[in-house]
């Protein structure tokens, strides 16, 4: 149920229909980022993902907020107002205990699925279509 919903939620009617995979993974990335770096605002998360992905992933940064709202509605992250680097009001997000548990299970799943896909893609082609 957890797993299914994690991927399925990106397919809700609210989703931007550009790349399902990217969004499903975006939630996971956001969660991981918050887990690794502690409280961050949306801009900081976007920067961190950009930095880690080394420009491999081109991110529509607005979708980070969609992801944040989704995660918050699940209760996996919490938010609080604070001051940003340039001394402006910013909303800081942090991972909750439930979020950590979810992250652990999602990470394990991701590893498994990534393995399957890698193996699948590594199969030698048997002649073109």
């Amino acid at each position, binding site marked *: 149920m957890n797993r299914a919903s994690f991927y399925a939620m990106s397919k809700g009617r609210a989703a931007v229909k550009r790349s399902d995979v990217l969004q499903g993974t975006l939630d996971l990335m956001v969660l991981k980022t918050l887990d690794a770096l502690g409280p961050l605002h949306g801009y900081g998360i976007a920067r961190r993902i950009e930095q880690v992905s080394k420009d491999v992933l081109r991110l*529509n*940064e607005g979708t980070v907020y969609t992801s944040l709202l989704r995660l918050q509605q699940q209760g996996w992250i919490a938010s609080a107002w604070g001051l940003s680097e340039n001394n402006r009001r910013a909303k800081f997000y942090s991972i909750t205990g439930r979020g950590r548990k979810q992250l652990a299970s999602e990470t394990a799943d991701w590893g498994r699925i990534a393995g399957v896909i890698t193996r699948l893609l590594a199969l030698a082609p048997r002649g073109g279509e």
Partner: protein
Amino acid sequence: MKRVWRFISRLHDLLASHRSERDFNQEVELHLSLLIEKFMGDGMSPEDAQDAARRQFGNVTSLSEIHGEMRSFGGVHAFFRDLRHGARVLRKTPAWTAVAVLTLTVGIGANIAIFSVIQAVLLKPLPYPDPVRLVVPCTIFQRLNTDRGNDSFADILDWKAERDLFESVAALIPGSTDLTDGGEPDRVRALFVDDAYFQVMGAPPLLGRFFTAAENLPSAPPVVVLGRNLWMRRYGGDPGVIARRIEVRGAPATIVGVAQADSTWPSEGEIFQPLGTGGQPDADMLRRDNHEYLALARLARGVSIEQAQARLTVIGARIAERESTRKGTNWKLHSLAAYVIGPTLRQTLIVLFGAVVLVLLIACVNVANLLLARGAAREREVSIRAALGAGRGRIATQFLAESVLLSVAGGAAGIVAGFWGLKALILRAPSDIPRLEQAHVDVRVLAFSVGLCLVAALIAGVAPAWQAARVAPLQSFHEAGRSVSAGFRANRVRSLLVVTELALALVVLIGAGLLIHSVARIAKVEPGIAAHNVLTMGLSLPDSRYARGPQVADGFERVLSAVRRVPGVIAASATSALPLGGGGFYLGRVFLRDGQPEPPASADTAAAWSVVQPGYFATVGIPILQGRPFTNEDGANSTPVIIVSQSMARAMFPDGRVLGRRMRSWRDENVYREIVGVVGDVRHYGLTEDATNTVYVPHTQNAWRSLTLVVRTGPDPATVLNRVRDAIWTVDRKLPVADVRTLEQVIDRNMARSRFSMFLLILFGGAAVVLAAIGIYGMIAYAVAQRTREIGIRMALGADRRTVVAMVARNTAALAGAGIVCGVGAAVALTRLLQSMLYEVSATDAASFGGAVLLLLALGSAAACVPAWRASRIDPVSTLRYE
């Protein structure tokens, strides 16, 4: 769990949605400005940096929309939108909306008023501690067909011994007494109770204490407990009244306590005096046939009323077997609540509630019908929306939103209407409905009305919503585009609703008709007296100043002769009890003819024993059929005489020779009295009760202290009253004059309940019929409007006006016929509930049924007239251009 979380989060967002939106905008703004700063740091120009930031961030507007939707309950928001839309639609057709809302107002208002009454009278627990354990043990007299007879003291003593059944059992006698210290003498309602009484009631005193066992001894110095009302009224709520000595019936008594409000029963008791039954009861008190007392008991903890009843029935049966005087008797335990309400009142309220529920149903059906008609007219709109992709659910909810709006408006207006309706109802209601004055629109009633609104919205909205949702996206383009007759399917549903409405209205009408009949029957009952211009008032001579029989008799004679001298007074006399349930005492006694052997060798004859002053029969207009009335010659020392009622004469002397024969009340007075007259029968207990055997004895030979004066006046009794009272006080300044009424008022009270139920049912029946008429009018008018083109074509092809009218009439007749058949069927099943409220009218009385059917037919035809006329006026030429 997760869903709950998401739900809470969304709920929070919904409530703070404007804040969430502001927060989100702030976040986006910050993000963009940080991005711009970053790009500018990379060396871009401000303009380029701004563009780049926007590109990298994505479309802000669409993101904002997505967030808005994610945060909301899609359904709730959409429903609010529907409500707004519905309100706009309703505002556009104010007349239509007013009719619909008014319809629901009537339905809901009537329900609120009646439910408030039911809540106060039937549902609310009695105000005493642990009231479900309070029971009233009564004697069943099979011969009198009652299970509410008084109890003998011996029986009460037996019950007091049943420790595992009853925690405590009290004996009491409700009556009245006079407070004679200072000021005007005051007749107050008294309860004579034994020392167990307050223990049974269970509430502590407000002040002082209650009676001790020693104070219940016959020889104990007199003490009283005041009820709170009397304490406030006469003593100004002074806490210093305890231990004060007051004068009761001319004798001193000490106040020992004050009882709390609502802590005693019967609640009209204003003062409490010991019954004096303590100690060793004498043989007379222990007689099993001496049914003088009312009992009140508290069940032991854990004992149900059924268990106690089962035990009592066994013991009672044994006594009935053993004692010859107790043949055909047993005991019945009434719960106090049931005893207070009585069987007929409960039935009446349930019937009235049924009637208002029917009215509400009719109102709902009416609104459903109105909505359907409107919905049919909007089929085109719906079909376009469906074609544009609106789901069935969305379309249905939109229609449901309208019915919700209507029923909320109707409900709000209904609460106001119910509030005023209830006030009017309490004002008009007969005064003997217990706790009616406590009825008000409280939280429970409000909750009930909210429930009603929801139910009403559903009933009224389901059919239209269902119909709208079934419109196929394209179908109605065809139908409405160039239709000959549109929407037959919808018409079928609507016809069904109109038939339902007519049937329901008919049921209410028939109920009203039955009651009208019944009240008319009661009004026609010969009371056996001439009640016009007769004033009555209670008078009681205290033993402190009128110690013995001769003084009492003399006192009444002096009072009466003073009253007879008052100008305007035609005749005056006095009696121990007024006929037709007017109050006072009849003694139930059994009689033997001179020479008749005592039972069981022969059967005695029961009759009510009444004591009267000379001139009584002439004053109240009871005819003397044989012999003579009592005169002043019938004194204490002359021959004991008696006058019997016609039915008594027939029962005791089948041979018809009555005058001059002798009879005795063999178990009580046991004195042979000579019969000097036979008088007409009177109904003692009420107009609807059978006349009972009665005997009359002269007051001089049986001097009771408490009598009711009857004064026949020439002018309106009200104009003479003060002079009569002054005349009484010229004889004795300290005599309280109580319960002043006219005989007509006494008779009126007999019909008060039936008349009130009738009045309400007529009201509800009227509302039902008007609503049904609106329904049938709407239906026919709409059908005619829909078929304008068809009718136009028919007329163009040669149909004349009469044919057209006949067509409409056929349509109406079909609806009315179906409604009447269903309504009569339902009424036959339902009016049985009314039977106990009817007097000499069968619950399936043909005249009432016929009258109601005719009335409904007349109104139905009247309602169909206008559309029929309009149909006949259709101009064929213009209709062919109609669309």
